[in-house]
């Protein structure tokens, strides 16, 4: 019943019932405290989200033009999560761990678009030297622990980075060690043992980590509610005595607000947070996916909640920016993306003589 009340008081319920249970959950979500925003923050967020969106659109184009290969998973629709979380963290200080859907996390973490695009083109100038590809973006410089292609395997790696942070502080007595790790993964991944094993260890040892679930309702063709006994993933934190929070993943300020709270807990030694972001991918699972299972009504519901449009509206309505200013940013970003493609096109392939390089650590 309490759900019914929340729904009745929420304007955005329109169409939620026909759009399925995930949409209904979003409509019923009681909004948590959003992050404070000023002009500078707002424009930064807008820039990052626009870069994520435009970069991915360009990837689709390049894939269909035969410039990139393999499986390519795009992030369209989920930008508020990457930008909301990473934008609230300290670059080159905190650590970020991603999946195969990693282009935009890499960009948010500060990996230059040129390096990401060249990696997708398989070039030597790529952030993984053309050895990794779309699903394996890495940058030690930008504290990107990597894109991981197997479901769930990034979670323990992220836990390890959080362990190092605590180890430095408490075993090596470096009181300045306060880095936090964000581990990104999907709803489908939350049915995998590594998720539960790591929630347990993180809470047990109070590790500074944020488990960021990007619940986009689908795991390729498996709908979330067909795969899990309790679709409310954030509640699973309770079983471990951990703080869990659900948040509107289409609202960057809501995600940022929740991240700020999680960071506060992590940096003060209170340990991990499970943050479930309700979101949606606007494209198929990968560029090879015919996307035949998702209902039009569902897609419509979510595309009306496009996180970029929402931020744009927020910024204009609160007079933090004008439409013209935002248009100008979009133009800049388009130029940056085009530059990344030109850079990648003219960049060299890896040297065939270096086929065996990077197997072993180099002696220094």
């Amino acid at each position, binding site marked *: 019943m309490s759900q019914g009340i929340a729904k009745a008081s929420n304007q955005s319920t329109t169409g939620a019932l026909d759009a399925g249970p995930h949409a209904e959950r979003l409509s019923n979500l009681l909004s948590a405290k959003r992050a404070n925003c000023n002009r500078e923050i707002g424009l930064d967020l807008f820039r990052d989200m626009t870069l994520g969106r435009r970069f991915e659109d360009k990837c689709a184009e390049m894939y269909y033009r035969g410039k990139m290969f393999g499986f390519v998973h795009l992030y369209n629709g989920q930008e508020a999560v990457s930008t909301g979380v990473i934008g609230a963290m300290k670059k080159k200080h905190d650590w970020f761990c991603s999946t195969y859907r990693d282009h935009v996390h890499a960009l948010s973490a500060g990996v230059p678009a040129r390096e990401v695009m060249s990696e997708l083109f398989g070039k030597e100038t790529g952030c993984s030297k053309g050895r990794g590809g779309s699903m394996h973006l890495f940058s030690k410089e930008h504290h990107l622990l990597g894109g991981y292609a197997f479901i769930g395997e990034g979670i*323990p790696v992220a836990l390890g980075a959080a362990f*190092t942070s605590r180890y430095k502080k408490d075993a090596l007595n470096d009181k300045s060690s306060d880095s936090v790790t964000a581990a990104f993964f999907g709803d489908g991944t939350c049915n995998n043992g590594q998720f539960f094993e790591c929630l347990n260890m993180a809470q047990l040892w109070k590790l500074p980590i944020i488990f960021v679930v990007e619940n986009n309702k689908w795991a390729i063709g498996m709908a979330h509610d067909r795969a899990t006994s309790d679709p409310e993933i954030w509640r699973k934190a309770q079983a471990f005595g951990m703080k869990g929070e659900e948040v509107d993943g289409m609202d960057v300020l809501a995600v940022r607000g929740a991240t700020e709270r999680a960071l506060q807990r992590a940096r003060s030694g209170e340990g991990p947070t499970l943050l479930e972001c309700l979101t949606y991918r606007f494209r198929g699972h990968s560029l090879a996916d015919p996307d035949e299972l998702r209902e039009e009504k569902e897609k419509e519901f979510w595309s009306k909640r496009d996180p970029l449009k929402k931020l744009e509206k927020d910024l204009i309505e609160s007079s933090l920016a004008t439409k013209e200013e935002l248009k100008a940013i979009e133009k800049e970003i388009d130029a940056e993306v085009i530059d990344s493609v030109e850079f990648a096109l003219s960049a060299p392939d890896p040297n065939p003589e270096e086929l065996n390089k990077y197997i072993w650590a180099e002696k220094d």
Partner: protein
Amino acid sequence: MAGTLLFNALREAIDEEMAKDSRVCVMGEDVGQYGGSYKVTKDLYEKYGELRVLDTPIAENSFTGMAVGAAMTGLRPIVEGMNMGFLLLAFNQISNNMGMLRYTSGGNFTIPTVVRGPGGVGRQLGAEHSQRLEAYFHAVPGIKIVACSTPTNAKGLMKAAIRDDNPVLFFEHVLLYNLNEELPKGDYICALDQADLVRKGKDITILTYSRMRHHCLKAISQLEIDGIDAELIDLISLKPFDMETIAKSIKKTHRVIIVEECMKTGGIGAELISLITEQCFDDLDSPPVRLSSQDIPTPYNGKLENLTIIQPHQIVDTAKKILNKGI
């Protein structure tokens, strides 16, 4: 004789490296308060504290993955498999994350980790606790694989493994932990990639590793009585093989037997024999022979278990047959 037991030699190695380098840490099931299932980390918890000697929940894939993340961000973890067989659950982490990540990341990250623990056919431990994972992991790129066989090389190899910037799979054998030996004085290491020429001989080369080294030694004393002078090489490094030492020996003896405890199919010897055929074919006077465990799950019954693995008399018989000395 004073001497040091093999498990204590390993313990000394870990202790000394932990004392010298505060980034070195241990993680695994019961490594802390309990001191390790074979006491390899005894008292280190008291000495170094609960973070540096971390008792983990029973979650092999996740704590092995955690070691990878810790290594990527500056630590040098030693992961203990309570029994190496349990690390089948961490196959993904050992293969995808330890072995391949440096390459996949284009050299962004190194993974200085040691994964160690007891393996091999013990005393009637049953199939699951009697595994020889060195064979299963052999194809994984980017990991070094070593097997210790004496207290001296256990200590020296462990120290080298901890100092190495690559992931090292370190195999110990359940039946060797109580071997006793006087250790060299002071800080010494054994090269991870060098085979050990255990006994010089001129008639035939025997290649082996881990516990089978001791079966081979028994066989060699018998062969000596029978007038056969065998050369014994303990491979130590299962990946990569020290082909230089191996080829040199075959050039001298022209005959080779491989004695291994892993199963024959897809085993260590399978790869080794291929390399010998590729690189030493012209030096061979007879076909190389593999003496391996049966291709079966290790049975519980003691008699059947003994029949599963190679016994010294089989090594003797094979050597005589190859040398036409009659059995």
